[in-house]
Every structure is written in structure tokens, then in C-alpha cells.
């Protein structure tokens, strides 16, 4: 009896806390369903009555939301894929090869984590505009294509492989490249998917860099697109919240499906086991 009471108190606390934690996300969704007339009615309006789905169609007609959205999908999927390909190659070299300058090069890669993005963003911007790459996907994608965080995490994971595995592969005449593709990558799938999830979330949410290198509306990502929308149409909250809810969706789904990988990836470097 007492135990039951105890656990129901815990659940009540959980419910209260999760309502607070998720409130901005839930609230955006609730408002996205509300008609403009209801929004301006007296009193606190939380639940749409009737449900006004026109906000969603309005959001797509007010701004080129579909274009913003597909730009973001393309850019963040490309960044994620490139980070993995480039990262697997580098982590493989740092784990399985012996060569001159290995530790210096590894240090050179890791130390890029010490340089805050904000302190090199202006120089990067002038480099991109000198190369005439403003308003291109290349400008949005390539500067993020190598991630020291990904390389570090993948190397940590690769190093857990027993060395007999490589010796056996070498005895069988398996080339290094095949060993990497057919053995190392499949075995390390958990860490690779962690890196993919983290890479996708961060590139989807990136704001400063796409703000700097895009002026053309056809190349804007969704983050910049919705903040311009909220600047321009500051009173039409229904469609704005509809656009915001759509923007939340990809990363919210990613967290829901990949929570375990997200947690293990983020904490692997931080927690000493």
C-alpha cells in the first residue's frame, strides 16, 4: 500500500516535470491548431476548438516552407553522411595503421575541438565569399564535413576490437579497405549510428552558419526561413507555430527512435568508465 502510494507520487512528479520540460514544444503544437479568432479571445487559450488545420496550409503558402525544408533535409543528410565517411576513414587510420607523425596528426585533429566555431566564423565567411560560394549547397555542407568529435568517438569504438581480428583478416589476405568496410564498419554500427544521430541533430539545428552564407531565399534552410517568417508576419501566430512544429518534427522523431544511441554517443567521451 505504502509502496504503491510512493510510486504514484513519483509518477505525478514525473508528469509535472515532463509537462514543464516539454512545454514549449507542446505549446507550439497546440497553437498551430488554433484559429486566429480563438487566439484573440479573452482568457488563456490552450486547446483549439475547433481545430484549425488551415494554419498548416497557410504556412506553406506564406513562405516557401517546402523549399526551406528540403534544403535542410539535403544539407543535414549530406553533412551527416560525409562526417561518417570521412570520420570512418580517419578513425580507421588512427586505430589500425602505424605511421610517421601519427600522434601529432591525431593531436592536430583533436585540438580543433578547442577552437570555438564563433571565433573562426568570420574568417570562414570571408573565405566562402572569396571562393564565390555564397548561396551554394557546397558552402552549407563542406565546412562541416569533418568532425573531430565523430573521429574521436569512432576511434574509441574501433580500439575496442581485439587485435586478433585484424591478424586473422590479414592472414586470409583481406585488404585493409575490405577489412574496414566488411568487418570494422558492421561491428561498430552502434557507435556509427550514434555519430549519425548527433551529426544530424546538430546540423539540422545549425543557425549562425546558414544565416551568414545564404542570402538567396531558394537556398535558405528551415531555421533561417522560420525566423524570417516570424519577423515578417509577426502577428499570424497560427501559421508560424505550424512552421515551428514542422521544424521540430525531424529531430524529435530522431530522439524518439535513437534515444539510446544519442545518450551513449554524447556521454562516451564525457564519462570515465
Amino acid at each position, binding site marked *: 500500500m505504502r509502496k504503491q502510494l510512493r510510486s504514484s507520487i513519483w509518477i505525478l512528479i514525473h508528469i509535472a516535470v515532463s509537462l514543464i520540460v516539454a512545454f514549449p514544444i507542446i505549446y507550439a503544437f497546440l497553437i498551430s491548431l488554433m484559429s486566429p479568432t480563438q487566439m484573440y479571445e479573452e482568457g488563456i487559450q490552450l486547446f483549439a476548438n475547433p481545430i484549425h488545420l488551415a494554419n498548416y496550409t497557410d504556412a506553406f503558402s506564406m513562405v516557401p516552407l517546402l523549399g526551406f525544408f528540403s534544403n535542410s533535409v539535403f544539407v543535414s543528410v549530406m553533412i551527416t553522411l560525409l562526417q561518417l565517411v570521412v570520420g570512418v576513414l580517419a578513425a580507421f587510420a588512427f586505430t589500425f595503421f602505424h605511421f610517421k607523425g601519427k600522434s601529432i596528426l591525431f593531436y592536430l585533429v583533436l585540438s580543433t575541438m578547442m577552437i570555438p566555431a564563433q571565433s573562426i566564423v568570420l*574568417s570562414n565567411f*570571408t573565405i566562402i565569399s572569396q571562393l564565390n560560394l555564397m548561396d551554394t549547397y557546397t558552402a552549407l555542407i563542406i565546412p562541416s564535413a569533418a568532425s573531430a568529435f565523430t573521429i574521436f568517438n569512432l576511434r574509441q569504438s574501433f580500439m575496442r576490437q581485439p587485435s586478433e581480428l585484424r591478424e586473422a583478416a590479414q592472414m586470409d589476405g583481406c585488404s585493409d579497405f575490405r577489412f574496414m568496410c566488411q568487418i570494422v564498419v558492421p561491428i561498430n554500427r552502434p557507435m556509427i549510428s550514434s555519430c549519425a544521430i548527433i551529426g544530424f541533430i546538430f546540423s539540422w539545428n545549425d543557425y549562425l552558419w546558414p544565416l551568414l552564407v545564404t542570402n538567396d531565399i531558394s537556398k535558405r534552410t528551415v531555421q533561417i526561413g522560420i525566423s524570417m517568417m516570424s519577423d515578417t508576419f509577426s502577428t499570424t501566430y497560427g501559421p508560424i507555430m505550424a512552421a515551428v512544429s514542422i521544424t521540430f518534427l525531424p529531430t524529435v522523431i530522431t530522439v524518439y527512435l535513437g534515444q539510446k544511441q544519442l545518450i551513449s554517443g554524447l556521454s562516451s567521451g564525457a564519462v570515465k568508465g
Partner: protein
Amino acid sequence: MLTQKIGRYSGYLKPYLYLAPTLGLLLLFVYYPFIKTILLSFSLTSPAGQLVKWIGLENYYSIFTSSAFYSMLLVTLKFSAAVMIVSLIVGLLLALLAQSDVRGSSIFKTLYTLPMAVSSAAVAIVFNFILHPMNGLLNQVLGTDTNWLNSSGWAMTAVIVITVWQNASLNYIIILAAIKGVDNSLYEAANVDGAGYWKKQLIVTLPSISPTLFFLIIINAIVSFQAFAQIHVLTAGGPYNSTTILSYSIYMDGLRKSQYGLAYAQSVFLFLVIVVITRVQFYFEKKVTY
């Protein structure tokens, strides 16, 4: 004979081929701009950010003698201190709460990780609506008609709340992982001593995860120095620069006012601040590790 030789050379080259994409990208988009930033911080720049002439320490002299720079640093310090401490405490409380294994707690655990995964820009738009002076939710709940974002104190609070809301969830994830790593026999020993839930957290969990908590303070400091989207969307650094932190000031001076030299000098300053913070962490970590 010749093929053997080629084979041996390609063997030497192979590791570097695997590393070439990484090194190329990092050299071009991290090291080159980094060096360029340092060099141009000693120069007079054109409105496009290009070198006009070398002027030595003049940019640094300008920022370190301007009172605006010091009030901006004070704003940054307030912001970072609040974000560092509050997100750690909230993250810790969330992790302790998630420890209580009640039915359905996995749903709640997922919910607590959400804030770090959603975009700061989108969340700032939602807050903009909640804080609306006319029919914003906060004014409706309180029965007031305050223009929150027009007051420097409230604008700062709003930016801190958004940043803490997101960053506490990152703290939560890492603390939760650290708690999972705590040796179970320590809890059993505490059980034998008859310790209750909170006592166990205090005498077992906290001391065991203290290296992680310390590490998180550093991470929080670095994250707080990167805050941009929420400031840009919610306050644009205002009112009267009351929410202009160092990273936002770099953006404003460089891109809005085309004073690249000053912005580059502040960029170097930001880098040095991060270096000092990381050094301090290494120093204490050595002292704390036993």
C-alpha cells in the same frame, strides 16, 4: 622489382590517404581561418574583411580601452555563470528523478532528452509568442501587460531560461550515463547501513559522479559562449546591448558594422578565454583524480 617498389611506397602512403579528406577539410576550414583570424586581428581591414595594412596591437588597444567592451564582458559573465550553474543543477535533479524506476519512466526519460535536440531558433520563436506584450501567455497567466523583452533584466532572463532549458537536458544525459557507471556494490553497502533514497544519492551518487559534474561545468561554459540563435531571434542583443554576449558582439561588429578588425580581435579573445577555462579544468582534474 618495380611493382614491389610501388607496392612499398603505396604502403607508406596508405595511412595518409585515409587521413587526407579529414586533414584537408580541417586545414581549410579550421586551421586556415584560425590563423587568418589571428593575423587579421593585427590589421586594418576593408569593409569586406580584407587586409588593408598592419596596425599592430591597435585593434586590441581599441577594445581594451572601450567601456562598451567591459560592459559586454560583464553581460557575458552574468549569462555564462547563470547558464553554467543552473543547467548543472537542473540536469542533476532530472537525472536523480529519472533514477526512480517507476512504471512508464522510459517515456519520461525520453522527454527529458528532447530539449537538447530541438532548434534554439524555433524555441526562441515560441518564447517570443509566450512573452508577447499584448496576448502572450505569460501576461495572461500573471494578469499583466509587461513588455518583457523591452526590459533589459527580463530580456536577459528570457535568454538565460531558453539556454538553460536546452542545456540542462544535455547535462541530464551525461549525468544519467555517469550514474549508470557507479559501482552497484556501493549502493548495496549503503542499503546495509539503512540509508534512504536521498541519503544514498548524497553519500554514494554525488561523490562518485563528481568528476563528471566538474567536466560538465566546463562544457556548460563553452556551450554558453556559443549561444547565438536564441539571442538573434529573441532580442537581437538588445535592449541597449543588455543581451549582447561576446559571440554576438563578434557577429555585430564584423557583419553588421563591418568593423572586422575589432571583431577578429574579439574572436582571438574568445579563443583565449576557452583555452584558459580548459587549462583550469585540466589543472583541477589532475588534483581531483585519485
